[in-house]
């Protein structure tokens, strides 16, 4: 079943991530057929753990070493020409989810890191010397070096 078809009967379906909808193709419970949308289950979006494995990886790279200095002011995203054109690319957000280890969110957004044009404006304005451009490069390498997050 394609992702678009999954849970299509859910009201305001667009607000639920595809990955959180479970719809069994064939399931029978107590002799009753609950296949397809009868057995739809929406997983909660609650963050249940912090996973610092990706942070360690990014931190170990020369240009990613300053990631822990970030205090989420958003100066990088404010000046980023790409972020103004593509709302899905947000360097501040990427840094935060990697730093905190929100693995599901990283898994969802990891491809947006390649939107970075490498102009370096963010690194010139960062008040904490995080070097967000470098962190984006480190992240893109870190994400690529591993198939999944886990």
């Amino acid at each position, binding site marked *: 079943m394609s992702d678009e078809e999954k849970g299509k009967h859910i009201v305001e379906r667009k607000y639920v991530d595809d990955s959180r909808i479970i719809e069994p193709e064939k399931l029978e419970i107590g002799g009753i057929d609950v296949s397809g949308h009868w057995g739809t289950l929406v997983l909660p979006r609650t963050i*249940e753990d912090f996973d610092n494995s990706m942070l360690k990886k990014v931190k170990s790279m020369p240009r990613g070493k300053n990631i822990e*200095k970030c205090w989420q002011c958003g100066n990088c995203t404010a000046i980023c020409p790409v972020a103004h054109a593509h709302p899905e690319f947000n360097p501040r*957000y990427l840094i935060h989810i990697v730093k905190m280890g929100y693995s599901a969110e990283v898994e969802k957004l990891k491809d947006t890191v390649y939107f970075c044009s490498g102009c370096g404006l963010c690194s010139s304005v960062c008040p904490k010397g995080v070097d967000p451009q470098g962190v984006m490069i480190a992240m893109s390498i870190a994400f690529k070096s591993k198939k999944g997050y886990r």
Partner: protein
Amino acid sequence: MSSLPVLVIGAGPAGLRAATDLAELNIPVVLVERRKELGGAPIRWKYHSLAPDFTPTEEVLGPMIKFCKNSSNIEVIEEAVVEGYGGSAGDFSVKIRKINGEVQDRKVAAIIVATGFEHFDATVDPRYSYGKAPNVIGINELEVMISEGKVVGHDGKIPKRVAFIFCVGSRDRSTNPWCCTVCCGVSIKQAIELKQLLNDVQIYMIYMDIRTIGLWEKLYWDSMEKYGINYIRGRVGEVFYTGEKLLVKGEDTLVRGPFEVLFDMVVLAVGIEPGEGTKQVASALKLKVNEFGFLAPKIPNIHFDSGKEGIFLAGTCVAPMSVEESIAEGSAAAMQAAKLVSRTKIIV
């Protein structure tokens, strides 16, 4: 110069500094303390060190306590409270009652009120399960553990993941609406000390705003950059004891993400509120109290002026503040009292 002494109520950082300064000017002082030991909050709750530079508490308060105990100009009356007063500036008569019931009437030239604060009692706010779940402690309790060099849970286990919850009993209409001004800095200081003590511990600070004012900002930067302490912006809705660990429910507002994560220990950054001593002295000396229960100075920007001639205020009985500010306010109040005492000489 009037030979009457100056009465200092409260022997915390502000009161000790005021008494020390006056005694050094050769003005006699009567120092009244409700508790048994001198030193106020930092000694009572065994503060290990003081923000922002990890100065040992002993180094800051020790010399003043020693001076007040030994100076021939200072008469220390412990376990006593001031119950009433009469007369006017330069010639007050006050009633001092010891806990054992003994009452003495004294003549004093001026009164300095430095009755300090109490930490917020976190049992009042049930969402944190303080007092019900084990391993939920206040920053005052963690400070004692750090002083003893041993931070463990109720079962003696070393915590692997610790959450600090900021603004407990502060900035909240259901408890106290003001900011305690120091708990951010103190919590971060403790987190760094905890990291130095237990190398492997993961620390998460759950905050609404980080208010490390002035030079205290260095603590905040160092905690992130040198110690890898994590910051989550949000406010905790509930702490739930699973029987083994503490489930902390909150939201990371930077990612719009609700979280429910297990922790081994939860430290509550309990705020500052006016203590029993401040309430008692306000009624005994008929001082004005502001909407928050702190003693109200005549002009909010001039803390030492109580609005009553001859009665001066200093320290956290006026507003939440750090130890360094309290010490400065003690000195300021002492100067006002000294001015009054020398003026009395001209009049008499």
